[in-house]
Structures are given as C-alpha cells and as structure tokens.
C-alpha cells in the first residue's frame, strides 16, 4: 500500500523547522533572504515567522545599521538567543565545561572546572550538576531550556546512551545522562555522545567543514578520538561506536594502549606518548593541553628533544591520516583539541608521510585543516545535538516544555 502523502500539518511543521534551522545556523536573515533561500513565497514566510514569533523562538525587527536601499526594508528574523537555550556539557579527562548556549549558537554563559584524573564518578556528576544549576539560575526568567547533551571521551551506545568504555575516564556503570537529567529536574533528557563525534558535527555545522560533506575530524585530548562525516552524516556504524580512529592500529606491537591493544594511533600520538618522547612525563604542574603546547613551543624555539618528539608523533599521525585518506577519501581532515597544536608543530612530517604513504588519487584533493572552533568543538557539537529536537518540531517541543514550566512552581507566567 502506498503511504499517504504528508499532511498540511506535517508540511507546516517541516517548514517551521527548516526556517528556524536556517536562522539558527546562518544567523539573522531578512524575510526576503529567507524567501529566496528556502524557496517559499513571502506570505508563507510571514505566516511561519509569526508562528515562531508567537512561540517565542524568533523575533522580527527592522534591519540595523547602514546599507539603506530604496523601498520598504524587509524585516529581519533573529533567533531569540537569550530566551531559548540548551545546556551543553563537555567532559574531558582533565577539564569539565558546562555552557548555556542560546538559539543561534551563541554561548551565553559558561562554567569551567578542572577534574582530578583519579576522581570519583559521583564527584564528576556533582560538579556537572552544580555548574548547570548555576547557569540555569542566571538565565532570564522567561527563558526556556529546550535540550541538553554531553560529550564524553569514550564509546557510547547510541540506542540508550550507555557509556561502554572510557579508557582514560572510567565512570563504571553510571548512566551519566539519566542521572544528570534526574538531578537537574528540567524535564529534559540529557543525551550522551562521543566527544569527537560531536566535534565532527560541530565543525561540519559551524566550523571548518561547513562546505564539505565528507570529512574526518580528529580530536586529541589524553587519547585520540575521531568522527567521520560521510555524505553529510555522522558515520556511527551499527551501534554508534564507529569512528574510533584512535584505536586504529598503526604500529603493530608498538606502545601499549589503554584499550589493551598495542600500537593504536592513540598510543603512538597521545598526550602521554608525546610527553614521554619529550622527556617530560614526570610530575609537572602542567597537564593536558598546556603540557602539549609547551612541547610545541619548545620545539619552535629550537629544543631538539621536543623537535624529535614531535617528529616521531608526526610520523605516526601522518600514517594514520594516510590510512584514513585511502579508506574514506575525505575532502577534509580537521585536527582539533591538542592535535591542532601537534599538526601545526609537525605539519612538515605529517604531510611528508601522507605524500609518500597515501594513494595519489584520494590524496590529491584532501585538505588538512585545524578546527575553526578552537577548544570549543565538543561543546558546540553538544549544543547542536541538543538543539536537534526543537529544530525538527519547534512548536510542539516548545509547547511541551512551557507546560512543564507552568506545572512547576517557578512558572514563568507566559
């Protein structure tokens, strides 16, 4: 039997989501621009924007600043960044970040904390909850939280957000997303995703990969994570574990990896290895990114031990990238986290290995770039992930959340 075509209601919902997504990703746009870009006529745009305005998702105003032209100016549709927000969590091995991100991708406010490498999962949860609560308290009275997502450095099962394995950060069998959602009590679920997968999404939506639908994002923290975007979609594999580039074996029988195997990319280019090569593994007051940056800095100033360390790490990284280029033929490979520093400090070696190690055809057009979002790739990715629901069905989601609001004592009265 043929399925029925979409109903009027489906189409309206779809168009609302599309329009909202446009101003969310591309920023304020005039009605005329929207009409042209979405291929809808102006009266439809007007109906859609007035629905979204009534729901408090966008507002319309006269264009600002110079650039006057003849005729009546087209109203500019802006996302209501301060009134509609999500909570984005980034859990790193050493640092925790919680941010309140407004519609349109504006980071409105953020809290950062450090995490001791041997601390307890319950401490982690407590810190995240405290950070998020203080952000929610600072939000405007009538602001509504429409989603939350958390980036975690480990493999996460897609079906139930269960953290299966975090070689550098063990949370036991704690269901982080559910626990957070319960403790926050905002009536929204907290999704948990792999941090590098979120980074790939972020760079694809808002960063270096905006025009590229086949890209690979490599994220360096203590370990190395990866996210693969193929045909504009994240490659998750059967259960969402895909993209674990850090555990691709590049050096059989090489250095011991935290995953139990030997010679994984992570074991050969991770933070501990770089610091060990540079003779800096022993207790220093700096950890994580700062320690890696110190090595790059020293190499730049001529320290031969640091140079040699970067050279060795660059060789393995180049080999890893060569394999990825051969297998996936990406248009773009993006280095984020500490790998950004390592790429810029060892690019000659990485590209030399790539030039000799990868096939000519896929290598020819691949571009190597650093993450345009800097240290916020995971955070931005988490925010984008959290916005997904409201962007797919703006009015319904908002109505539901406002109802929760009204039921709770802190009713906004709208």
């Amino acid at each position, binding site marked *: 039997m043929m399925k029925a075509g979409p109903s009027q209601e489906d189409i309206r919902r779809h168009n609302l989501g599309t329009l909202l997504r446009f101003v969310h990703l591309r920023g304020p746009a005039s009605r005329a621009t929207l009409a042209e870009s979405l291929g809808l006529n102006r009266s439809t745009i007007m109906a859609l924007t007035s629905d979204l305005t009534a729901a408090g998702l966008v507002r319309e105003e006269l264009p600002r600043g*110079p650039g006057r032209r003849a005729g009546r100016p087209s109203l500019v549709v802006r996302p209501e960044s301060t009134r509609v927000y999500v909570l984005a969590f980034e859990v790193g091995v050493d640092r925790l970040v919680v941010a309140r991100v407004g519609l349109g991708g504006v980071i409105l406010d953020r809290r950062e904390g450090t995490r001791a490498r041997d601390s307890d999962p319950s401490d982690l949860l407590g810190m995240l909850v405290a950070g998020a609560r203080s952000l929610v308290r600072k939000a405007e009275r009538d602001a509504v939280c429409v989603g939350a997502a958390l980036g975690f450095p480990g493999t996460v099962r897609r079906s139930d957000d269960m953290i299966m394995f975090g070689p550098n950060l063990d949370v036991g069998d704690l269901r982080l997303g559910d626990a957070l959602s319960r403790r926050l009590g905002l009536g929204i679920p907290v999704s948990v995703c792999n941090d590098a997968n979120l980074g790939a999404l972020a760079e694809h939506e808002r960063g270096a990969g905006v025009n590229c639908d086949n890209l690979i994002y490599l994220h360096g923290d203590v370990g190395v994570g990866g996210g693969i975007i193929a045909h504009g979609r994240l490659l998750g594999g059967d259960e969402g574990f895909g993209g674990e580039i850090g555990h691709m074996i590049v050096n059989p029988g090489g250095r011991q990896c935290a995953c139990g195997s030997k010679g994984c990319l992570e074991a050969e280019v991770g933070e501990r290895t770089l610091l060990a090569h540079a003779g800096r593994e022993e207790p220093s007051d700096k950890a994580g990114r700062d320690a890696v940056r110190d090595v790059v800095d020293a190499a730049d100033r001529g320290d031969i031990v640091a140079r040699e360390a970067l050279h060795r790490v660059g060789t393995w990284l180049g080999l890893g990238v060569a394999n990825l280029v051969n297998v996936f033929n990406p248009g773009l490979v993006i280095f984020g986290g500490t790998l950004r520093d390592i790429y*810029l400090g060892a690019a000659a070696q990485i590209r030399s290995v790539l030039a000799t190690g990868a096939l000519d055809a896929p290598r020819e057009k691949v571009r190597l*770039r650093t993450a345009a979002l800097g240290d916020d790739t995971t955070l931005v990715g988490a925010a984008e992930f959290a916005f997904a629901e409201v962007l797919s069905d703006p009015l319904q989601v908002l109505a539901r959340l406002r109802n929760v609001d009204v039921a709770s004592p802190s009713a906004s009265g709208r």
Partner: protein
Amino acid sequence: MNAGDAWEPAARASGPQALPYGPAAPSGPADPPFPDGAARVSRPANAADTLTAHDRSARGDAARWEPLGMAVTPVLDLRGIDKSFGSVKVLHDIAFSAYPGEVTALVGDNGAGKTTLVKCIGGIHPPDAGEYRFEGRPVRLGSPRDAAALGIEVVHQDLALCENLDIVQNLFLGRERRRGIALDESGMEELARRTLSGLSVRTMGSVRQKISTLSGGQRQTVAIARAVLWDSKLVVLDEPAAALGVAQTQQVLEIVRRLADKGLAVVLISHNMNDVFAVSDRIAALYLGRMVAQVRTADVTHRQVVELITSGVSGDLGLRR
C-alpha cells in the same frame, strides 16, 4: 517547483531513505502536494543520526573554486622575470603563479631573491624583463598604487603600521572614506569591525585602540586585515610569523588559511617548514635567483623541499645540471 533545489538537492534524489520527517513520510518525492513548495530538508527521526547536511547549495559557493585544478586561471602569472640592481643580477628568468583559493608558499634561503620577487609583484621594483599577467591579462605596474588598484596587497615584514594611530585609522590610512566633506568615521569603523570578524578575530577589543597597545600577533592581524579590506584578489605575506610566539603564529597561520579558503590567492613567504606544510597548497622554491620548482605541497616531502632550498635540486625536481 524549485523549492528543493535551493535548499537540499539530495532530499529529492535519494527517495525513500531520506525521510523528510517522522514515520508518516511521503512515499516519494515525485508527488508532493506541497501547497507552496515546501522547503525540503530531510530531518532524520532518530536524534542520534541528526545534524546532517541540509543545505549544500545554500551553504556557500565554495564548490565553485577548483583550487588545485589546472584549468583555473592563475590570479598572478609571471614568466621570464629578470631583475638586476646595477651589475648584481638578483632574479633570473623567474616563472611564478598564484591561484585563487590557494596558499602558495615561496621558500628559499637568505638572499635567494624572495623579497625582491615580492617587491616586483607589489609594484615597488619594475622588472627589467619578462611578462606580468594578472587574471590572464598582461599588465605593467609603475607603482604600488597600480598594484593596489588591481587588487594586489602586500603585507611587508615590518608591517608598516602607524603606532600612534588606532586600528581603524591604520586600516584606511591614505584611502579614507568620505561622506560629503567629512570622513565617514562610522562607516569605516563598521567595515573595520566586519573585516576583523570575517577573519574570525575575537581577541581584539575595540577597533579604536592604538596600535601601540597591541601585541605582535594582533599587529600582524591588523596588517592582514588592511590587506583584505579592499576586496583584494592577491595577498602577499612576507614572513608573517617571524618574531611571533607559538600561539600567535598558530593564529596567524589559521588566518592565512582562511583567506585562501575564502577564494583569495595568497602568497606566503616563510622559513619555517612546518608553517609552509601546515597551510600551503603549492610550494615555489627559489635558489640563487632562479625558480627551481613550483610543486604541490601534497606531492613532496620535507626532505625534498629542504634539498631544493639548499642545493636547488632534489631527485628529478629542480635545476637541471
């Protein structure tokens, strides 16, 4: 109905697997009873699969550039350039091209002629002989102003900024905008701000700060911003990362890369092989006043480039002896 064309070509072509929405999806793209041409962006139902590419065509025109294709006309094409200062022959039969959307790194040892070549490109020294083509047309440059009029901007090693003036004044120095008889201060300020944010520079505070209050990296950024303010087509950067710390070098390199990704042709002079390999698409090596090779960065190794710089030859690349 051309709604989908502007927004998501894939939704139309990929049929049932690109469910536009929810479980009650339409059977096929051929018969959409959309009243007003619904904007078709496929939204996956499963949140974990979300955040796809929605709007390839609406997203930008980057695909227009075919950066590495040989069919693209080089923005700058020099052939047979000679330059002598008195009896000292500095450049000999130089061929050099710079392509839109690419960073071309110009490398060479001290005294190889890099800076002289840059000055020939920027109209400071007229070449003694040879052909200078800009966007395919032969041109003659008599002065730096001619070069600027064509859309060529050079950021010199010493940056040439005025310490006692603020950022906006520096950006527009000698080319101030007027409104009537007065200067269009607000217009210039707005454009300065837009240019800096276009370079994704967030670290700069007010655009009315004096240059003397800025750090080395920030000054370099202002100098680059001045070069791109004028819809330039070719930007030449002479050692932009010299004398900068690592963090600032990284920032400048990323700006250089972004310029090219916007479609400009960028020529980068650098001594640091990591910088060259990190951002360039092509490498042009000068050796004692001769252009020994112009190769694609993806095709060469560090060792080969070092050999070209130091001996003018590497394997079958470089000078024939």
